[in-house]
């Protein structure tokens, strides 16, 4: 499955890019699975996800929890807790 990944704020800065298109291997079912797989891709990812409790996720632009299944998602975003307003 090919998905579009987006990174914002310090997640973007640590990973060093604002997004990328990735082919996910089978076995990645939930958001948490994806975080673990990404963390193993290199030190920049490992650092971005070092404190997973500080990283939020959105599937197709909706907030989700770690245990949410990816399903047939097209766009996945990772970012810190929001600080607007």
């Amino acid at each position, binding site marked *: 499955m090919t998905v579009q990944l987006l990174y*914002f*704020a310090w997640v973007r800065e640590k990973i060093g890019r604002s997004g990328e298109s990735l082919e996910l291997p089978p076995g990645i079912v939930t958001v948490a699975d994806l975080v673990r797989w990404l963390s193993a891709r290199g030190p920049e990812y490992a650092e971005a*996800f070092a404190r997973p409790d500080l*990283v939020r996720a959105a599937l197709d*632009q909706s907030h989700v*929890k770690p245990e949410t299944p990816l399903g047939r998602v097209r766009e996945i*975003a990772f970012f810190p807790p929001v*600080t*607007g307003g």
Partner: protein
Amino acid sequence: MTIRVQAEDFDVGAEVRQLTAGNTDIGAVVTFTGTVRGAAKGRPIVSMTLEHYPGMTEAELARVESEAHGRWPLDATLIVHRYGELRPGDNIVLVIAASRHRHAAFEAAEFLMDYLKSSAPFWKKETTADGVGRWVDARETDLAALARWNLQGHSRSRAAE
């Protein structure tokens, strides 16, 4: 019901006039304006940069606004949120709630702010005089403020693991 995400500044008076023009059922208009403070934790800042997630931002703000209309009898609402590089004293966000009942207008405006602060995908980076930029931490008090409103489904917005 209107939302706007923009780099440009806004004028509170002009927005109120435009939102309420021609509607004499409205008796109460509450506005909230959030502005860039000149110091963060005692350190003077020279600028604040607001990053956002285009598309999701608009969707979340529309959801927040729709939730408010489901809870209070509102004649009109507006949310304007800026992004980009701002200076101390600059406007960041404007919320307007217009109703025939003043308490509905007050509560809805406060709800809109509490809710958007915890759900709209914006991130603030403050730059101090030494040129160092720091991402603003999410505040526990903002989550506590949100808890007052007993929002269902919002627990979806939690940690990624």
